[in-house]
């Protein structure tokens, strides 16, 4: 049902564009230098994804095994990079590793390394959080059996934890790949002109050349590439069975060897060193520029309203997709990332141009696009939750004749509550940091924190822009803590 609706929204958006393509298309790609762009897009996205996913698993595993004071806090902080507009992260990384930074020359920031580093900064924390969630579902009995059967740490990982990770890997990896493949601000600012991704080429055709057929052609190349890769990843990590457990993970866990413990600590420290200094740099450079003028309040209010509306809609769309938990739903949840938002937005715009242009229309379109872009995050989180609802639950509910709202309230909500809070948060944080939708549809003086930050940057007001970025980070931080607090309160009740 929702699958169909989301697909309809997307296809409707593309329909007017295909009309352009049919009438003015020219398929000679080689002449336009598309090939090197495709190669570069793939190369940087694959390497960034590989590092983020492998390191994300390692960090999640280490975090799960290694309890330390502040672990819960650290996990919460890992939600924050996602909230940062790309340029804020770029400037944060520059404060650390740039020519004028604290550690100049430690990492060659301008070039391929910088692009990958920035992508890993954004995506490793997200991977770690999602894998942490997947690993938590590993059943206690598995660890007991492994201990009894004299399995080493590697075998325990292979037999007990890997089966939990396997279905999550395909999802998380495709999400990260899409995020990296669509890189624009990071790719250009660190890579310069040679770092042209398909997204940049699409932007050029759509904006500068206003060549809709070419933008659509390039989008189709992107769709084909991403689609194939997602399919391959899904095939590679296909699993025909997975254990589900409701037991809290505080049960028996093997004691890691000294070497493993050292490695775990090293991994957590490395992740902390990647994420925390950038967050601190953004806060430190922003705190003196923190200001509360009328536009700040207006942007804060609009951001929160847009974020909440987008998150709620994303959640409603994600619910049936996560519940179905099949390949089609997975692909649909990623649709808004596979199709470049700018292309989709153009289609929507052509469709709706008969409607009177108004503040409400702009607001609604921003919410619609944001909720589609936040959908994969919400769906990934909710899917993990739905997997905890065992067939036993399902049978029990059917037997008791629990349906509709009653089933939701009695069977699903209690299990899903922490995941719902988490999904809502991820969707909201994602929307709060978004600049794409606001750039595409933001007229009538709709001002959000990222667009205010951008406007300040565009007017020589670097210090104020840093302050707005810090405020955005603080707001997201506060929301993260609130969401966790709400989820945990219910867990303990």
């Amino acid at each position, binding site marked *: 049902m929702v699958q169909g609706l989301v697909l309809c929204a997307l296809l409707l958006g593309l329909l007017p564009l295909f009309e352009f393509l049919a009438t003015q298309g020219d398929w000679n790609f080689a002449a336009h230098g598309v090939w090197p762009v495709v190669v570069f897009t793939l190369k940087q996205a694959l390497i960034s994804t590989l590092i983020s996913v492998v390191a994300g698993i390692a960090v999640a595993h280490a975090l799960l095994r290694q309890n330390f004071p502040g672990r819960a806090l650290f996990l919460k902080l890992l939600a924050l990079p996602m909230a940062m507009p790309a340029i804020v992260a770029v400037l944060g990384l520059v404060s650390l590793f740039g020519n004028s930074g604290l550690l100049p020359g430690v990492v060659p920031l301008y070039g391929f390394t910088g692009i990958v580093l920035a992508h890993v900064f954004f995506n490793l924390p997200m991977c770690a959080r999602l894998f942490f969630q997947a690993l938590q579902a590993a*059943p*206690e*009995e*598995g660890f*007991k*059996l*492994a*201990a*009894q*059967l*004299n*399995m*080493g740490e590697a*075998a325990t990982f292979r*037999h*007990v934890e*890997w*089966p939990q990770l*396997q279905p999550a890997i395909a999802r998380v990896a495709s999400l990260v790949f899409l995020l990296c493949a669509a890189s624009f601000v990071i790719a250009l600012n660190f890579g310069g002109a040679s770092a042209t991704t398909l997204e940049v080429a699409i932007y050029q055709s759509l904006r500068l050349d206003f060549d809709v057929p070419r933008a659509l052609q390039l989008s189709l190349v992107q769709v084909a590439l991403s689609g194939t890769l997602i399919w391959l990843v899904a095939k590679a990590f296909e*699993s*025909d*069975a*997975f*254990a589900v*457990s409701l037991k809290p993970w505080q049960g*028996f866990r093997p004691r890691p060897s000294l070497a493993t413990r050292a490695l775990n600590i090293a991994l957590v420290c490395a992740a902390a060193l990647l994420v925390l200094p950038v967050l601190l740099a953004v806060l430190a450079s922003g705190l003196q520029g923190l200001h509360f003028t009328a536009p700040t309040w207006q942007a804060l209010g609009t951001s929160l309203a847009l974020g909440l509306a987008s998150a709620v809609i994303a959640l409603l769309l994600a619910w049936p997709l996560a519940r179905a938990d099949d390949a089609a739903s997975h692909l649909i949840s990623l649709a808004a990332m596979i199709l470049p938002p700018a292309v989709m937005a153009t289609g929507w715009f052509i469709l709706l141009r008969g409607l009177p242009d108004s503040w409400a229309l702009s607001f609604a379109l921003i919410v619609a696009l944001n909720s589609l872009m936040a959908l994969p995050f919400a769906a990934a989180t909710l899917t993990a939750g739905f997997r905890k609802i065992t067939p036993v639950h399902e049978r029990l509910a059917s037997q008791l004749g629990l349906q509709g709202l009653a089933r939701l309230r009695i069977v699903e909500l209690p299990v899903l509550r922490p995941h719902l809070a988490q999904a809502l948060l991820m969707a909201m944080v994602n929307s709060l940091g978004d600049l794409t939708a606001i750039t595409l549809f933001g007229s009538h003086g709709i001002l959000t924190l990222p667009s205010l930050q951008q406007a300040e940057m565009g007017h020589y007001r670097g210090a104020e822009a840093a302050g707005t970025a810090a405020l955005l980070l603080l707001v997201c931080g506060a929301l993260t803590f609130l969401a966790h607090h709400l989820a945990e309160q219910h867990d303990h009740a």
Partner: protein
Amino acid sequence: MITLENTVSKRGGFTLKANFALGEGRLCAVLGPSGAGKSSLLNVIAGFDDLVSGRVLIDGEDVSRASPARRPISMVFQDHNLFPHLSVWDNVALGAAASLRLTEEDKSRVDEALARVGLASLTARKPFRLSGGERQRVALARVLVRRSKVLLLDEPFAALDPGLRAEMLQEVVDLTREQKLTTLLVTHQPEEIRAAVDDMLFVAAGQVSGPMAPAAFFANGSPAIAAYLGLTARG
């Protein structure tokens, strides 16, 4: 033969005390109200919970400090006994070598064990295509391959229907006798296993009492057991 000498163990805020011995080839039921420490008792024996004081001996050998893998013990749970991504055969073979690199002799032992529990025809299946009873048989086959001296069963048949439960119970009795195991079976059906078991342990409020013969257990006048069996008038 298993001996718990004045053991005290803690998990969270819960303390469990035990002091008893059970001979080889004997099947002992572990009974008691929910949350009173039955599973904790098995965890102490298997080495999943650490001892605060006291000793655990198997055939006279102190295993108190040994890791779960070093103890000649197998444990079967109500669920999750099988690794979902491995075939039936591999799941049993794990009992011989965790690396799954088996000698020819090991391989024939795996085949024998599977034949012994009546699953010789299902060796290639994945666990999700087995019935509940079949899964528990796979777990028992692995116990055979491991050549354990002590078998710990934590409500292993709770999810099965009564006919199947009786059948599986008989299988456990036979294995215990045949392999000269010492078997502890946690259950909530004292009447059902009454005729099959040799001894009964009663765990209540963190204290293990027994072993006692089934007849003695049912005739025991202690208020805790009477309450557990539902013999006292509630008011």
